[in-house]
């Protein structure tokens, strides 16, 4: 797993208070990890802070799973 994936996972565990084993790439923040809409706003902010990236609102809306987040951040970092 990439460094980014590791860090994303850690942030998700911390913010949503879920077990690490549940944070699989396919896991949906809302459907699988118990997040509500405010939790996802906060998560995106935490990603922005941790990775020093900007995630505009329209992009944030498309981040539904752990993998979505990792992919988006990896793409930003590669650019």
């Amino acid at each position: 797993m990439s460094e980014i994936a590791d860090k994303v996972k850690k942030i998700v565990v911390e913010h949503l208070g879920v077990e690490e084993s549940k944070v699989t790439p396919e896991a949906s923040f809302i459907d699988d990890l118990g997040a509500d809409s405010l939790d996802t706003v906060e998560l995106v902010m935490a990603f922005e802070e941790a990775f020093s990236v900007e995630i505009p609102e329209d992009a944030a809306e498309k981040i539904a799973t752990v993998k979505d987040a990792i992919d988006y951040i990896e793409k930003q970092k590669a650019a």
Partner: protein
Amino acid sequence: MGIVSPLGLGLEHNWSRLVAGENGFGRISSFDPSDLPAHVAGEVPAGPTGTGGLTLSDWVPVKDQKKMDRFIHLGLVAATEAVEDSGWKPQTEEDRCRTGVMIGSGIGGLQTIYDASITVHEGRARRLSPFFIPSALINLVSGHVSIKYGFKGPNHSVVTACATGVHAIGDASRLIMLGDADVMVAGGAEAAVCPLGIAGFSSARALSTAFNATPEKASRPWDRDRDGFVMGEGAGIVVLEEYEHAKARGAKIYGEVVGYGMSGDAYHITAPAEGHEGAYRAMQAAVRSAGIDVADIGYVNAHGTSTMADDLELEAVERLFGDAAGKVAMSSTKSAIGHLLGAAGAVEAIFSILAIRDNVAPPTLNLDNPSRESAIDRVAHEAQRRKIDIALSNSFGFGGTNASVILRRV
């Protein structure tokens, strides 16, 4: 009933320490108060659950803690104790819809607002937590309690500064009388022992500053050396229930809310009117609504903040009791826990109920030299065993708002 206060967690823990003459004061530990005039406060002690200390993660899941200011944490702790104690677990949708919540706060999420202001001031507005607003809003204690237990009845809140707790209990009992609910979870929560809270009340010259080196002596209602109140934090929550409803399910009944009175001073934003005539009218209205004889009141839990206003309240209570003043006991339990602002009235109403239950008047600590004599026994230093069937509890708030509640043995 549930209490979290500077004396610790739990109804019986609080009561036994209070009756034993213990206090919950110390130098402020949650931040360094050195730059402020007042260094003393009553903070809820941390410690293992079951020993009277607070371990927050045992009450509020860690992931939810950051979504709430500390006043909501404390409100949830006391509400959990109260609801469990009541044994009321509505099983049907109808019962849930007949159960409401009315928990207030004087100030609400002050520390949360302070922190968020700094974030915005530093140009990081886009980093402001989406939980900022629901963390700071006063009615969110009621919201969280309803969500936790599924109580779908009236969901309301009170904000009347230091009179909040009594107004919440009084108004909630009226909602039951009016038929809006069968059960109401009511009370107040406060957590304003933070730099902004202490600085603000210091600027208003309301806090004690002369006893920074001897915290246990700082809160001294009616004593000639008193120099301001000591802030405390905590929550007091009661479960009110329509009498026949409670009887039918065999509920544990501590006592009955029999009287409630309110008034406004129309005088000054922080100072009480002459002779505390607004307090007199609130007490008088409570006595009238209870339909009792003043002389039957055995105990008064005074607002008694340890400020100059103490003697004005004394004057109003003397006027209320007239010739019966020599028979009543009045104490200020703020001498042991400090002023819990919006939670004060609720915690003190609970102490009044326990005074009735055990026929014990809790003491006024540090009343070494009363600034003036009175026929009213103010229970100096030590608790007194007395026959108490009816008790009156007073709370008055900035803005000139006064509330009194009368409680009776069932």
